[in-house]
């Protein structure tokens, strides 16, 4: 959770994934301006102070020597998968990882040279066709799932939730284990505000901040919300 010295407005810290962790307690994040909080972060000058609470939550399963990981990133959802690939590269297992990375246009795809330098196989897609294959990441994922059919593979995704559900359904239909890093409105990041609830099979709700953000897709995909007892609508707090 990151917040600058913004006074009273915007009030809440913003959740970010770590892109990379450097020596001496430094860390990189990838930010895209989508609202006032991210706009203020983007405008922050070098040396500006920010409050950081973290790292929080869960991570993707570690790379395994005998398994191919299909990393599916949508736009600014790249960071945790970039870090996953970096971990694999450090362990000289990067040949077992593939990055399927999509955006609306070419400007949405960043850090390509860095990922190439890791030796990572990149499969790029853009909705306007400016870079890579024209279309959505799910199309590219389908082709890679087909390519690896019959070998041990896992899918790991991060991006807009709609993309993640599509990725998770595709993996489920192919019988492939899938882990997704979800996004939800949250205030605290530590399991207190209970704002970031996600309907789950293992419990009526799980929390993106403290149980996630990375979930086994089988636990959270297509869960019937009606199964959870719902409070009277007029009861706030």
């Amino acid at each position, binding site marked *: 959770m990151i917040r600058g010295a913004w006074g009273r407005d*915007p*009030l809440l810290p913003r959740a970010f994934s770590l892109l990379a962790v450097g020596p001496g307690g430094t860390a990189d994040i990838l930010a895209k301006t989508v609202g006032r909080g991210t706009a203020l972060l983007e405008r922050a000058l070098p040396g500006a102070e920010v409050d950081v609470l973290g790292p929080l939550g869960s991570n993707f399963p570690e790379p395994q020597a005998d398994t191919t990981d299909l990393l599916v990133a949508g736009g600014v959802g790249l960071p945790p998968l970039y870090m996953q690939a970096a971990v694999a590269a450090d362990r000289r297992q990067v040949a077992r990882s593939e990055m399927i990375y999509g955006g609306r246009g070419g400007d949405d795809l960043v850090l390509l040279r860095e990922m190439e330098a890791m030796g990572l196989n990149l499969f790029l897609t853009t909705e306007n066709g400016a870079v890579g294959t024209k279309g959505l990441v799910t199309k590219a994922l389908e082709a890679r799932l087909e390519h690896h059919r019959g070998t041990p593979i896992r899918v790991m995704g991060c991006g807009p939730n709609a993309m993640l559900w599509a990725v998770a359904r595709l993996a489920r239909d192919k019988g492939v284990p899938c882990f997704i890093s979800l996004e939800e409105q949250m205030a605290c990041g*530590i*399991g*207190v505000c*209970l704002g970031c609830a996600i309907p789950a099979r293992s419990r009526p709700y799980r929390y993106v901040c403290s149980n996630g953000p990375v979930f086994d897709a089988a636990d959270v995909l297509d869960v019937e919300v009606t199964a959870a007892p719902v409070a009277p609508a*007029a009861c*706030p*707090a």
Partner: protein
Amino acid sequence: MSAVNLAIETGGIAFRNPILTASGTFGYGREFEGLTDLRALGGLVTKGISPKPRFGNATPRICETASGMLNSIGLENVGVEGFERDKLPYLRECGTRVLVNFFGATFDEYVDCGARLDALDGVDGLEMNVSCPNIKAGGIEFGTDPRVLRDLVRACRAAIRKPLWIKLTPNTSDIVALAVACAEGGADGLSIINTITGMAIDARTRRPKIATIFGGLSGPAIKPIALRMVYQVRRAGVSLPISGIGGIQDATDAIEFFLAGASTVQVGTQSFVDPDASGRIVRDLEARLAADGIHDVRELVGALVVK
């Protein structure tokens, strides 16, 4: 020994200082382990407990608003049994006063829940949330009708021996009448205020920003309303001590509530912004009083100057 006295006995409980944490913003205490020193706080108020566990509302449940946030969590909680089994052992050892917030869907549920919590060792006091819809009365909040509120407080009072505070809803045209009703029902203290019902709309999607359409507004945006209500109750001469709640971010905010008439304050939404907010307010309050030559925080309570 500190040169400044922050200790205060109020609402039937002796606190080491007047900074508490508000229900629903501090979990069951343990979530803040390592993030703030619970032993430095005056006390904490737990998430609201109901007789049975509740799983809460559909999502989205929260959204940020100007200098505040809306929430409609749906009073999700572990229930009395889960609280006793899983949460209370930690709270017994946590080194600060523990008030347990509670509620029910009916009179009987309120009384049952309050009585069961009252019997638990490690609970220093109870805070009753009366902002729940009374199903039998067509969904009107228990806490908005002074007669219903008085009867509810009286019924709970008869079943509860520990200090009983009532957390008033601000969704009323007459906060004083509600405070008087609580005094008549035999309460030991008032917590003023709960969240204010509000709404947020996404102009692009044309949808409400939270699933239940309406939610409770909290944060610095509501501080002027909370101060006004604390002061109104104080000025009306209601005999009960007040715990002030609403947008408290720093020691100055806390002092403003003391001046308006609160003898303790509860830090709410700010704990989301900074998990150590309440601890920092305790430290800053002590330093501020020392710098101002005020030897006892109790000097500030109700010391508003009105000409």
